[in-house]
């Protein structure tokens, strides 16, 4: 069991992450992760078959920084809006680790086009405290979507 204060804190943290991305504040994205971290977007078909391939994999703060640079400066893509829709967080705690699961859907709107669903899935997170602040030790984004509409041009 976890306290309702902790539950609120986790939900706020997870929500703040999504809002930072939707607001285009990619600068802040690596700050949500611990020094020792893993961020991986993985297809459910791989996840369930025990296949390791990620759609995107960062296993260090440096890799998060490099991705951030690529997404914000190097990659070529048209203007768009993103909207993360999050389900209620389910969290549990053991020792110093918090585990959380949250459903997500991301709506993408390209300039001049209809809004479509980019992907749907679930975050499977491990959170720790660093300097008293919650951080992702591990964030697995397991997506159900069989066919990604074109590309994923930001972190999810």
């Amino acid at each position, binding site marked *: 069991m976890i306290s309702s204060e902790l539950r609120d804190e986790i939900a706020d943290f997870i929500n703040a992450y999504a809002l930072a991305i939707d607001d285009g504040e990619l600068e802040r994205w690596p700050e949500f992760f611990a020094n020792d971290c893993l961020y991986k977007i993985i297809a459910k078909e791989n996840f369930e078959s025990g296949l390791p391939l990620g759609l995107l994999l960062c296993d260090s703060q440096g890799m998060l920084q490099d*991705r951030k640079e*690529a997404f914000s400066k190097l990659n*070529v893509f048209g203007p768009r809006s993103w909207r993360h829709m999050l389900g209620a967080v389910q969290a549990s705690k053991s020792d110093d680790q918090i585990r959380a699961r949250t459903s997500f859907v991301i709506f993408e709107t390209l300039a001049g086009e209809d809004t479509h669903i980019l992907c749907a899935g679930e975050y499977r997170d491990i959170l720790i405290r660093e300097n008293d602040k919650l951080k992702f030790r591990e964030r697995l984004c397991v997506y159900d979507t069989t066919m990604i509409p074109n590309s994923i041009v930001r972190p999810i």
Partner: protein
Amino acid sequence: MSGAPLNWPDGNDRVPYWVYTDQGNYERELEKIFYGPVWNYAGLECEIPNAGDFKGTQIGEQSVIVVRDDEGNINALVNRCAHRGVKLCEQDKGSFHEIICPYHQWAYDLKGNLLGVPFHRGVKGNGGMPEDFSMKENGLDILRVHVRNGGIFVTMSDEAPPFEAYMGERILGYYDRELDGRALRLLGHSRQRIGANWKLMLENIKDSHHASLLHVFFVTFGLFRVDNESRIEMDDTGLHTALSSIRGKQELNDGTAQMRSFDSDLELSDPNLLDVIPEFEGDQTVVMQTIWPNVILQQQSNTLATRQIVPKGPNAFELHWTFFGYETDDEKMTERRLRQANLMGPAGLVSIDDGQILERTQKGILAHPGKSGVVELGGRDTEDADHMVTEVALRAFYKGYRKVMGL
């Protein structure tokens, strides 16, 4: 766009835009190309290692089951019940030892033979199949299969030449370089849908010089750039291409000075991403092969993959990526491949740009079937080149394409 006259401009150096948008031409492509005398890529053996393992795939617009039978052979069966046409198998992968249609329970073995039909002999003397109903003639449609060093290819035509002749000696050489007979280790799949004509994907790989201009990431880190030592080689038909290149340095020279996207100061915070180790004979650090009509077989540094192209009408295609290594890889090598996989796929550091630009190309040409694209870089010939500052592979490709299509 039907109704527009389908004229091909004179010469090898123009490609008419209707070839990417015309519905009638697309339907003829399905018949003459995907269902014609070609070898379509259908997967890797390591995806179905055990007896009974299957994968679902698509050849043209047809759904096909690729399955390993009890003798270890690989069979390809059209995914359509011979009775009433039900799609037999809805999963992308799994394992079974017979195939049973849920509708009326016609049952097939893994070779496609019809094993049983319920009420075949009737019930209490009523009904049943006619005396002369042939079990033999009512099995599943079976495709011819060729397996080479772990790669699975299928054909719907009796006229397809032997696989080796189809590939040609040089392209086969590049194929064998990556699929060299070692057992492959499946690392995973990713799939994306791109709103562009399927041929634009092949062109994207054959068009070697775009990488120097569009892909800042490639350019900056020298992974693939026009000033790199490179070769473009084609088979006799011009339809297969192998592009190979040696990684260059992050330096300013007369090539990089002309690339607006070059940034000599860019540095990776974590150089582990490009911790590349040589693993093949020769100096090439990248080999991109387009194998007609539906697959790209690629090595970029230590990331190995196939991209299967599945056409979805003239204006869209799916790209099914399969990443792999070798069974002999140690843990470090597998990690390296997985990290470098960041370059590729639907969120790839470089392939994001391609997905986006192909869709933009389709948007640009959609309403202009009477106009043409220009492919004159490097001249108007269709011969192999020892550099990348050329669109020769596109000219050779359309020369071969016109022959196949009778255009």
